[in-house]
């Protein structure tokens, strides 16, 4: 087991190194932050001074060496825009995203499991089609638009909920719904197909032959087994939300890492962009590793493969 973990960690380090090189190169392809920081009537002298002050006057290969050297010591550079260590800026924002993500995951589960179950049990019926429609809507509805519609209905028209920003419990409702809607469709389809598969299995047939009621068969025998693939994908869903909450955080003025990524891209804040992507990658790799380890623990075939 230890060898398995060590192997996975080493693989993660290689992935991070390659990612760091790719991010470093791609960030610089899109332009220079000095061009966005300078006033439009800035002179060549102004530009040269700014580049020097930002450390961007050095050759790219030198910047790369400095970046790699710093990264090995846990220093991912200073944010050009915020004039603070990029790692500090990231961790200032991360808790804001982490308060949103578990709630969105919980909301997605609460909605998608019953819907997936209903769709499977009533396969081919009107209920299945309704659930299918919900799934299609969930996939097809852009988060951006859904967020704005929710704000219009619940904040402007009904006046029940605040439009945006972090705050008390009511501030979480609309962003959580928007973020959860993104997951519900996929999760529901997964539950449905898993339940259908289990419903066809021998042990379920046996349970029915034994005369157990439909409720017991579904809830006790079927659902528990059907949820295994869903639980396995939790890590993926979690990582997806942490890294993919950009739109929701922008619409709801939520100061999380999703919006931070967007800002880093827009302002060509190289160090911040590099830090955000690398740190998110570490989170994703960490979560994946935890899931894999758990999986390997549950299924010895995995660790011997």
């Amino acid at each position: 087991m230890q060898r398995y973990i060590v192997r996975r960690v080493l693989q993660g380090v290689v992935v991070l190194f390659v990612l760091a090189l790719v991010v470093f190169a791609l960030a610089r392809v899109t332009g220079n932050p000095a061009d966005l920081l300078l006033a439009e009537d800035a002179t060549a002298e102004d530009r040269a001074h700014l580049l020097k002050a930002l450390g961007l006057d050095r050759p790219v290969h030198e910047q790369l060496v400095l970046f790699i050297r710093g990264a090995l010591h846990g220093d991912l550079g200073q944010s050009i825009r915020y004039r603070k260590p990029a790692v500090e800026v990231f961790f200032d924002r991360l808790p804001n995203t982490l308060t949103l993500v578990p709630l969105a995951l919980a909301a997605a589960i609460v909605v998608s499991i019953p819907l997936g179950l209903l769709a499977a049990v009533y396969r081919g019926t009107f209920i299945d089609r309704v659930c299918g429609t919900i799934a299609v809507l969930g996939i097809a509805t852009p988060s951006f638009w859904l967020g704005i519609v929710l704000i219009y209905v619940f904040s402007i028209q009904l006046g029940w909920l605040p439009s945006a920003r972090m705050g008390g419990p009511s501030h979480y409702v609309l962003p959580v719904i928007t973020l959860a809607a993104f997951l519900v469709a996929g999760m529901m389809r997964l539950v449905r197909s898993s339940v259908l598969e289990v419903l066809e299995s021998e042990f379920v047939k046996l349970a029915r032959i034994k005369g157990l009621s439909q409720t017991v068969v579904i809830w006790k025998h079927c659902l528990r087994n059907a949820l295994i693939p869903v639980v396995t994908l939790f890590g993926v869903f979690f990582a997806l939300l942490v890294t993919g909450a950009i739109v929701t955080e922008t619409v709801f003025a939520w100061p999380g890492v999703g919006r931070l990524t967007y800002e880093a891209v827009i302002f060509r804040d190289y160090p911040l962009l590099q830090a955000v992507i690398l740190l998110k990658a570490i989170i994703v790799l960490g979560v994946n590793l935890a899931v894999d380890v758990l999986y390997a623990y549950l299924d010895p075939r995995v660790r011997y493969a």
Partner: protein
Amino acid sequence: MRIPLALLVTLSLLVGGVALAIAADRDTLIIALDTLGAQVMDPIADTRAPHAHYHAPLWDSLVGFDFEKGGVGPGVAERWTLAPDGKSWTFYLRKGQRFHNGDPLTAHDVKFSLERIMSPESISSGAAALRRAVDRIEVVDDLTVRVHTEGVIPHFAASLSRAVFMEGTVVPKKYIETVGVKGFREKPVGSGPWKFVRNVAGDRIEFEAVDSPHWRGTPQFKRLTLLLVPEQSTRLAMVRTGEAGIASIGPEAIKEVRSGGMKIVTVPGTMQAIYQFWGLYRPEVKNSPLTDVRVREALSLAIDRQQIIDHVMAKEARWPLPFTMYRYSIDVDVPRWETWAKTALRYDPARARKLLAEAGYPTGFPMTFWNTALPGTPFMVQIGEAVAGFWEKIGVKVDMKTVEWGVFDPMGRGEQKGLVGTATMFRTVGRPEPSPRYSTTLTSKGPQHLFGDPANCPALCQEADKAYDAVVSERDDAKRLAASNRMIELGANSWVVVPIIEGMGYWAVNPQRVGQFKPIPGRHELGDVAERIPRPDQRPWP
């Protein structure tokens, strides 16, 4: 019973939260902004205008505003004089000014602030210009400071007003030396009408009103909160629900603001949307139709500016004056150029076609037009599309290339290879003193040098250089006015840099949260206005 109880608790929490959120206390002025810039509380660490939102409430500037007309007025210095030789400026500070920690604001703070903003670690946008301009700074006494300049610079004092640049900001010397830069950025102290309370990265900056009367105006609200809300729809929703009193908007939102029962406050003369031709003096484009002044004039006559004002800008824009000139500009003959603009910038497609025919292009010609928008002005792309549409109508085949500003900006620097012989959208920011823009765009040493560069400076370029030198160094007011008008003439008659509309700053206001107020002409940001914004009962909206 468990489920209803849980529901009850959840609902009460929600309702409580809503009550708290919506009833955002009426003592706090909440302004929702599209950007908070770098959100760094230090004048030397930010480069662009957003800090006029959040630095101005906290810090005063050595030279202030004319709050009514726009442009320059008294600030920390109540008056200033130019030495007989024209090479030094003496600033006389107001008596009794104090920083929020109780320290008196003196000439030593002014000297320290100016030297700090010129220091190598400063990335402030006007720092380089200040370094070029300042020879040394001398403290005459506690309330008098003298700045010796490199040569005669008639507009030096104006450049220390936030109406022009941000480099005149006065910070506390003793406090910074005591707590260090990090300590200062975390807990900044200023002398403005608002004291710093909290800076939450990516979310908000909070201020608290000073206890005593302030020369800029004593705040009517107890607190000021600047919220970062990037999405415009969300900002509008917050104003409609009363979660914010004021929000920054673009012209595309004006109809929604009107229909939603909100008020619109417009700031006149914040920018000019222009188009300009690049490198037409270069030999490699000598055969381009654009090198013919009749063609360039025809392109201007083809544009129906009133249509753009009415439809793209929802009627909230003005007829422009010549390039980089506003109704509050100094050293220019505004009535003369208003008359000129009414006629010369008219919509006259018949005359445009005639001019094209005279130039030998009766059926038009192909041209490349780079469409772009500076940060905070997305409507410029729509203006560019409208302009291209008008050009198409007189037969010009426009190859429009729309690019993001970050991609476009480097193209205009250095060799300008991709731009030579093409037209682009651009803008000029609203400043009472136009010389920085002349320098950038029209002089041979400027980064854009549309008339010529030092190696290839034709007659028009040489004349512009000569006029510019007089604009920035002539001490005689009448001669300087004449030089400035000549500079405008050169720009106007060349049709190389052509104004499209004079843009405004736009704000959506909830009339139940905020009373009627007047912004400073030319200054889009409200950082210097917040203390004069009344409560709704103090000055209700009509």
